[in-house]
């Protein structure tokens, strides 16, 4: 197995990690704003802020890690995606910047400022939408590659049903993942009022999530039939995803085992995400970039893998410490610390 497989596996795992933790964060921002508009903020915003405060920066690092690693393992991606994504990439940066800094302004500076809350809620939905365009573009059909450089065909992108189906899936799954996690967190905190509200959100958003997933499949069959065919080679992976989806919804519906329910949600997205990823190989950017042609030279590949292992040895114990201190410290969650 060459460095291209190690590289893409590592990157895909991190992107999956980002998908989960960022979804929780993005959705929480939206729910916090929504609760405030509907005067329910007293029920759950304290809970949300206790979760978000210590972890927001960590979320951001998953993303930085992914794109730095992508350029490290597959430098050609810098050339293609760099040129093509100037506009969507810049918009995503601006949204992330507004979100990150205004979160800090709000929580450390002026509490309960409605403009900050609004920005925080709105960017929570806009960021997944803008980031998802990178995945859409990687399916091919939106780039014009010439000797003068790579151009994104924005009109095609905006008129494509596939592109919109991905945006829709990104937004609803953010709300679904987030409400599922927050239900679990509320349950753990013993906060009955917040739980009953968040549980309703979770059940509500589970329906558009499964519909949007199916829509993406249908749109894919039109947009990139070759990839669509390969998706079927991995039908059992998507089958497992649906199974875990049903388990998660059933558990939350019957008001039990919220922890397991969230693990099921994670597995649901794990299988869907890896099924999509593995069927996409060998292409990183269809049909221009494949993992084996664009992979960095062996010496750099080895250095990156060694650095990665060293980094994990440093980070995993630290992350465990952080989680024990905040996420899974019952007293902290309940607000006693």
């Amino acid at each position, binding site marked *: 197995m060459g460095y291209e497989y190690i590289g893409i596996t590592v990157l895909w795992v991190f992107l999956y990690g980002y998908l989960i933790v960022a979804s929780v964060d993005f959705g929480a921002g939206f729910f916090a704003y929504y609760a405030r508009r509907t005067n329910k903020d007293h029920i759950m915003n304290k809970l949300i802020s206790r979760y978000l405060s210590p972890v927001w920066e960590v979320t951001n690092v998953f993303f930085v890690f992914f794109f730095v690693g992508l*350029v*490290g393992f597959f*430098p050609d991606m810098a050339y293609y995606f*760099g040129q093509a994504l100037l506009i969507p990439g810049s918009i995503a940066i601006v949204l992330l910047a507004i979100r990150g800094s*205004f979160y800090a302004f709000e929580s450390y500076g002026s509490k309960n400022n409605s403009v900050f809350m609004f920005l925080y809620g709105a960017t929570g939905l806009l960021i997944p939408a803008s980031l998802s365009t990178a995945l859409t573009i990687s399916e091919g059909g939106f780039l014009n590659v010439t000797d003068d450089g790579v151009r994104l065909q924005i009109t095609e992108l905006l008129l494509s049903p596939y592109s919109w189906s991905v945006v829709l899936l990104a937004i609803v799954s953010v709300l679904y993942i987030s409400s599922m996690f927050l239900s679990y967190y509320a349950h753990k905190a013993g906060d009955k009022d917040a739980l009953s509200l968040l549980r309703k959100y979770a059940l509500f958003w589970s329906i558009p999530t499964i519909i949007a997933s199916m829509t993406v499949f249908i749109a894919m069959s039109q947009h990139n039939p070759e990839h669509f065919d390969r998706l079927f080679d991995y039908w059992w992976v998507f089958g497992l995803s649906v199974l875990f989806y049903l388990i998660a919804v059933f558990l939350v519906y019957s008001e039990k085992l919220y922890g397991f329910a969230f693990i099921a949600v994670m597995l649901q997205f794990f299988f869907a995400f890896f099924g999509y990823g593995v069927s996409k190989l060998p292409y990183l950017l269809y049909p221009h970039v494949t993992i084996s042609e664009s992979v*960095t030279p062996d010496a750099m590949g080895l250095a990156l893998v060694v650095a990665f292992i060293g980094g994990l040895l440093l980070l995993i114990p630290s992350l465990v410490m952080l989680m024990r201190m905040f996420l899974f410290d019952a007293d902290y969650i309940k607000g006693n610390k």
Partner: protein
Amino acid sequence: MIELDSVMLSRMLTAMTLIFHIIFATVGVGVPVMISIAELIGIKKKDKYYSLMAKRWARGFTIIVAVGVVTGTAIGLQLSLLWPSFMQLAGKVIALPLFMETFAFFFEAIFLGAYLYTWDRFKNPMTHWWLSIPIIIGGTLSAFFITTVNAFMNTPAGFDVEDGVINAINPLAAMFNPATPTKVFHVVSSAYMTSAAILATIAAVTYLVKRDQEYAKRALKLTVTATLVFSISTAVAGDLSAKFLAEYQPEKLAAGEWHFETEEGADLVLFGTLNDDNEITGEIRLPKALSFLAYGNFDAEVTGLDKIPDDEEPPLFIHYFFDLMVSIGMFVLLVSGLYVLMTYVKKWNPHNKLMLWALTTIGPLSMLAIEFGWVYAEIGRQPWIMRGFMKVAEGATTSPNVGAMFLLFFLLYFVLGIGTLVVLRKMFKDHPAEVELEHLYTEVGKGGER
């Protein structure tokens, strides 16, 4: 007239992002050191003023870090968005430190989260203090890794080129290229110095407006002493950097010093202006000092711009930036040195108006010196993006939309800048240290929740 093509606009956008980001990055690297020292003194001396100092600095620090994180994300992505061909080529050689920087930052972020939310959670206050050490390590390592990438752009190493194809890649040799030691030393030391100086400015202003004078006195003593120590080490680093340039990047030194003819016993040109015929007027000329600065020997030969091909000559205006940076460095060293001296001589009052006014300037001036230093370093590398291998024009994006993105980011940085100032002001204006101290230690609630 400069043509605003996508190369020029890419340079402008990158420059704007870096000029903005470096403010937050500098403070992000340096302030944890000061927080850690203050907390330790507070614990050891059982002096609640110092503990409060650490707490207040940490609170302001969170805002700076937040903006540093988001602007750092911006520059990280902009490297690929604006310089795709450069990243495609350089990524094969120098991706390792970029990758490790993420780990260093991840490490810092985790412990920062733990540090900020656990002030009173441990029985032994030293446990909390220990959490500050990984923050310092993470921040300083981040600076180290990123600086090696910039060093690589100046003196690329760790690869061979054959027929336009890169091979024989050695990531460690690329990371530890000839520019790395002096550059890292200079960057880290000046970040510590500037952070201490900014905190000194805040303390001096607090003292001058006659608020919290007991608190401000201690803060001044700590921060100005630190500024002195770090400005001495920064001066040493600067001197080593000049010696490095003379040997490895003579065109940057020559352009910065307006040294046109290669000669032995070269004069050092301070200040002055250039007329239309490239003749220097109004300068102060120190005989043979450039030779000494460059090689530690008054008679050594220093390469002049005559040895550099015309199309590889950096712009000459960088001389002004070099002079400004050095002058500020010297001024800060003198002011902080004088203050420290005055605290040791009983008869003298270090808290006289003039001294305090001088101290209010050292923070902003040090930050300006960092900006000037980077302008010198970056413009001084022109026309190269990767010296000797790729010019900036070859590395830039060809996208026609860079101008619009420039405006978008200008707006973003404007909003972030204003937001930071407003929030920081609000954070401290209504919460003077004295009130907070009472509040903390008597636990009689006066204000809102803190």
